[in-house]
C-alpha cells in the first residue's frame, strides 16, 4: 500500500486507451465499474478532442456482481462490435474487473467474430502504470496484426539499404506518438519534414492517426524510429528481434540530439552523410544553422543564462533531453535531474551521473518538491506537477513532459523535436526567466528610490509604501534563521541592498554559512564572508 496525493501516471488501462484513442478503426471494450468512464475526459478535455475515445465500458454495479458479469461483458462486446464495426478490437479490464476474473479477452475470442483481430489485454493494474500499459498495448496490437507476416525462423534480416536495390527512396516508420503524450502531433510533422528534406520518406506513423491496416505495413519500411521510447520501446525491440528491423533510438530533442539522430538515420539506411551534417573543424556542423537556438544561445543577451541553476524532472525521454540541452546548449547548470519513469531509470541515472548528479527516481511529487526546494534552482523544467510546486516555491517553471494540462496542448505549432523544436524550447525555457538586459538594468538601478520590492506601475500611485520586509526585520524571518541565530540590524540593512529576486537565496546561504561557523549574529561582515565562501 502506498500513499498517493497526486499521481504522475494513471493506471495501465489508461495507457491502453491512449493507444486506442490515438488510432482510427480500433475499439476498446473495457470491463470496468461505473465511474471509470472519467478517463474519457482526459481526451475530451485535456486534449480537447472533438470525439469520444473509442471505448465501451461495461460499467458494472454491485447488483451485477451477484449475477453474471461475464454475460454483461459479452453483451458489451457484441454491442460494441455491431455498433462501431472496428477493424481491430482490444478487450481488457480495469483494476476492479481484474479482481473478479471474468477473463473478458477469452470471452471475446470465443464469440465467433471471424477475421476480426482481437487483442486480449492483460495489464496488471496493481503493479504497472499508464506508460507501461500504453507500450504493452501498442506491442500486443501490432503483434496480433503482424502474426500472419512473421518471418520463419532463420530468415535473414532485411537489409536497411534495400531501398537502393528496389530503386526507391528510403523509408522509416515513426513509432510512439500518441494522445496525451507531449507535443506528439507537432513532433510528427517536424520529423516527417526533417526526414523528407534528406530524401527519406515516412512509411507509417503509429499509433497517432493510424488504422490497423497501417500497422500491417510496418515491415515495409527500412527501419523504425523509436520516437517515444516510453510507448514504442517494447514494440521496437520486438520488431528488431522478430522482423530484423533496424531501429533508430536517438530521440531528436535539442540541436546535438537532432544532429546525432540524423547521423544515425543516415548510417542505418546506408545513406551518404551530407556535408552539412559533417562536423566542421570547430565541431559545429552547418545543419545546426537551420535552428535559431545555437545563435540565440551564443548571442550576447544570453550571457545572463550562464550557470543558471536548473532542476529537471519528467518522463525519462524528455528529462534526459532537457538536461542535455540545458547543460550543453544553453549553458545552464543542471542542479537536479529525475524521472517518474522507473522503466527507464537506468538511462536517467546514467545521464545524471554524467552531470555529476544522483538521479531522483520517484513518483512521489512531494519528494520531488522537496528535492527542488533543496536544490534552490532558478528555473524548473518539469511536468504539470512541478509547475505547481515551483509556483509554491516562487521559482519560474516551463513544462517539458507529461502529465500535462490543457494549456500544454497549444493551438500553435509547437514541436519539441528537430530544428523548430529547438526554437520552441529556447523561447519557452528562457521566457520565464528575466531578460538579460532587464537583469542588468535592475542591478544598475536597484538603489534608486523608485525601485522597491515588487513591481511599480507607471500608472503612478504616489510614493511607494516602504516595503515592510525592509522597514523592520519581521519576526518570522528572525525565527526562520533558526534557533540561536539572528540578523543584526546592520546585517539586515546590507541584505536589503541585494536585489529581491536573489535575496532569499543569499539569506539562506548566509544562514547556512553562519550555522556552519557557529555564528550567533549575522552582521554585514558575516554576509560578505558568506558571499566569498559561496562564490568560490
Amino acid at each position, binding site marked *: *500500500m502506498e500513499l*498517493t496525493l497526486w499521481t504522475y501516471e494513471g493506471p495501465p488501462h489508461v495507457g491502453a486507451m491512449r493507444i486506442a484513442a490515438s488510432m482510427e478503426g480500433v475499439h476498446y471494450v473495457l470491463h470496468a465499474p461505473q465511474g471509470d*468512464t*472519467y478517463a474519457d475526459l482526459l481526451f475530451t478535455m485535456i486534449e480537447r478532442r472533438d*470525439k469520444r475515445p473509442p471505448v465501451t465500458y461495461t460499467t458494472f*454495479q454491485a447488483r451485477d456482481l451477484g449475477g453474471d458479469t461475464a454475460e454483461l461483458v459479452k453483451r458489451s462486446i457484441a454491442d460494441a462490435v455491431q455498433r462501431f464495426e472496428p477493424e481491430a478490437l482490444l478487450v481488457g479490464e480495469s483494476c476492479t474487473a481484474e479482481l473478479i476474473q471474468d477473463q473478458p479477452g477469452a470471452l471475446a475470442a470465443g464469440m465467433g467474430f471471424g477475421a476480426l483481430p482481437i487483442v486480449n489485454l492483460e495489464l496488471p493494474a496493481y503493479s504497472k502504470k499508464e506508460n507501461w500499459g500504453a507500450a504493452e498495448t501498442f506491442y500486443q496490437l501490432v503483434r496480433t496484426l503482424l502474426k500472419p507476416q512473421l518471418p520463419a525462423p532463420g530468415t535473414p534480416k532485411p537489409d536497411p539499404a534495400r531501398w537502393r536495390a528496389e530503386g526507391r527512396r528510403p523509408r522509416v516508420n515513426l513509432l510512439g506518438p500518441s494522445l496525451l503524450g507531449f507535443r506528439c502531433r507537432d513532433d510528427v510533422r517536424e520529423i516527417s519534414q526533417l526526414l523528407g528534406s534528406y530524401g527519406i520518406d515516412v512509411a507509417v506513423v503509429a499509433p497517432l492517426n493510424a488504422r490497423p491496416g497501417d500497422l500491417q505495413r510496418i515491415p515495409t519500411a527500412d527501419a523504425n524510429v523509436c520516437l517515444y521510447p516510453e510507448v514504442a520501446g517494447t514494440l521496437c525491440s520486438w520488431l528488431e528481434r522478430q522482423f530484423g528491423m533496424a531501429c533508430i533510438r536517438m530521440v531528436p530533442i535539442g540541436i546535438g540530439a537532432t544532429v546525432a539522430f540524423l547521423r544515425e538515420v543516415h548510417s542505418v539506411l546506408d545513406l551518404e552523410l551530407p556535408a552539412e551534417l559533417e562536423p566542421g573543424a570547430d565541431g559545429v556542423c552547418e545543419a545546426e544553422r537551420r535552428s535559431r537556438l545555437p545563435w540565440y544561445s551564443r548571442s550576447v543577451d544570453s550571457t545572463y543564462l550562464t550557470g543558471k541553476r536548473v532542476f529537471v524532472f519528467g518522463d525519462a525521454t524528455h528529462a534526459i533531453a532537457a538536461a542535455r540541452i540545458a547543460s550543453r546548449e544553453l549553458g545552464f547548470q543542471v542542479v537536479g535531474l529525475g524521472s517518474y519513469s522507473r522503466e527507464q531509470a537506468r538511462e536517467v541515472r546514467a545521464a545524471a551521473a554524467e552531470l555529476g548528479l544522483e538521479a531522483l527516481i520517484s513518483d512521489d511529487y512531494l519528494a520531488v518538491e522537496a528535492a527542488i526546494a533543496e536544490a534552490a534552482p532558478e528555473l524548473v523544467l518539469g511536468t504539470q506537477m512541478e509547475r505547481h510546486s515551483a509556483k509554491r516555491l516562487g521559482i519560474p517553471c516551463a513544462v517539458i513532459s507529461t502529465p500535462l494540462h490543457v494549456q500544454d496542448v497549444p493551438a500553435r505549432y509547437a514541436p519539441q523535436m528537430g530544428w523548430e523544436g529547438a526554437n520552441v524550447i529556447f523561447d519557452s525555457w528562457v521566457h520565464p526567466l528575466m531578460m538579460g538586459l532587464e537583469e542588468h538594468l535592475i542591478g544598475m538601478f536597484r538603489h534608486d528610490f523608485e525601485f522597491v520590492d515588487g513591481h511599480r506601475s507607471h500608472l503612478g500611485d504616489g510614493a511607494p509604501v516602504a516595503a515592510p520586509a525592509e522597514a523592520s526585520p519581521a519576526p518570522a524571518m528572525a525565527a526562520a534563521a533558526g534557533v540561536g541565530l539572528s540578523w543584526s540590524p546592520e546585517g539586515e540593512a546590507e541584505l536589503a541592498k541585494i536585489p529581491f529576486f536573489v535575496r532569499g537565496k543569499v539569506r539562506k546561504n548566509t544562514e547556512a554559512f553562519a550555522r556552519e561557523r557557529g555564528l550567533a549574529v549575522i552582521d554585514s561582515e558575516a554576509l560578505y564572508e558568506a558571499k566569498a565562501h559561496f562564490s568560490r
Partner: protein
Amino acid sequence: MASSIATRASAEADLPPPLKESGQREVFCGLTSIVWLHRRMPDAFFLVVGSRTCAHLVQSAAGVMIFAEPRFGTAILGERDLAGLADANEELDRLVAQLLERRPEIRTLFLVGSCPSEVIKLDLSKAAERLNRQHAGRVMVLNYSGSGIETTFTQGEDGALQALIPLMPASSEQQLLIAGTLADAVEDRLIGLFHKLGIERVASLPPRRSTELPAVGPGTKLLLAQPFLSGTARALVDRGAELIRAPYPFGVEGSRDWMAAAAAAFGIAPARVAEVLDPLVERGQRALAPQRETLAGKRLFLLPDSQLEIPLARFLSRECGMELVEVGTPYLDRQLMAEELELLPAGTQLSEGQHVENQLLRVRQQRPDLVVCGLGLANPLEAEGMATKWSIELVFSPIHGIDQAADLAELFARPLRRRAALSFA
C-alpha cells in the same frame, strides 16, 4: 409566488412513465464528491482506500484548481495487499500513522471505500474502529463507501454525511437542520434569512468544522439543501428529526418554497414569510429576466450525472421558459423528488439509469439547443454543433437560494450567448 402554488394541480400523474435504461453509464462515482466535501471541512482528510485508478479519477475530476497540498489522498492497494488482508490492514495502519504525523491539523479522517476495497472485502468499518483506538483523542476516524459499484457522483456526499450522523449529539431542542453542502457565503445568507423569518436555531450538516457537529433529536426539523441525500435523510429521521417536504432551493420559486416550507414547519405566519421573502422574490425575478430572454423557448436535454437534473429542469422550464426534451437522472428517488415532480410541466419525459449510446442517439435526433452532461461528453457534443453545460460545475458553484437564481440561470445562458457571440465570417 402564490401563483406557482395554484398551478400545482398538475400532479405527477401527468408525467409519462420514465424511460428505464440500462447499459453503459457515463457518470462519475461517489469518490468525486470528496472534491467539494474536503473544501467544506478544512479540518478533515479523505483517504480513499483503492487503486491508482481512484487516485487518477479524483485528480482528473478535480483538475488543477485545488492542487495545493490537498486534504485527500489515496492509499493505493498493491499486489501484496491483495494477497493477504492481514497485510492490507497493517499497511493501512502504517499509512494512516504516517499521514497523521505529517498533517497534525487533521481532526477527522474519513476512510473512503472504493470498488477494489469493496470487492476484496476490506472491512473499513473495522479498520476505522481499530484506528480510533490507536489514535484516540487525537483524531476521529470514520468510513463510508464512494465506490462506483455502489454510488454515483453526488451519492458520495450522502455516504460521508451518514458516517457523521452517529456522532451527532442528541438534543430535543427545537432547531432547523439544513443537510447538504452549501457554499459558505450562501449558507450565511440563508441562515440570516431564516433568523429573519423567526427561526432562531439553524444548524448545518456537514458543519464547517468536522468536530463541531450539530445536535439532532425530536425537536429537529430537517431541510434538505441537496436532492441526493436519501440515506442521510433516513438516518436523521431515525434519530428523531422530522423531514420537511419541499422542492429544492434552486431558482426563485424553489428557494422561496423551500424556505416557506421550513417557516410553516415552525408555525411562522405566511404573512411574515411574505414580508421577508416577497421583496427578495421580486428582486430575484428582476435579476433573472435578462437570462430568461436568452433561455426562453430553447430546448434542453439533461443527461444523468449529478442527480440535480430534476430540480434544475423544473427551474429552467418554469422560471426560464426552457422546453424540456428529456430529463435524465442516475436514479429516481420518488420520495425525495415528490415536490419537484409535481412542478414539472405535464408530459416531461424522464429517464432513469443510462444507456449512453442510445441516449446520444436521442440527443442527435432531437437536436436540443443545450445539453447538460459530464466532462467526457461535452466537447464531442459541441463539435456536433450542440451547446453544452458541464454538470460538475453545478456542484462547485454557489447556486442555492433566491439571490443566486440569476447566477444559476447565467450558467446555462452563457454557452448559448457564447455561441451567438462567435463569428468567423
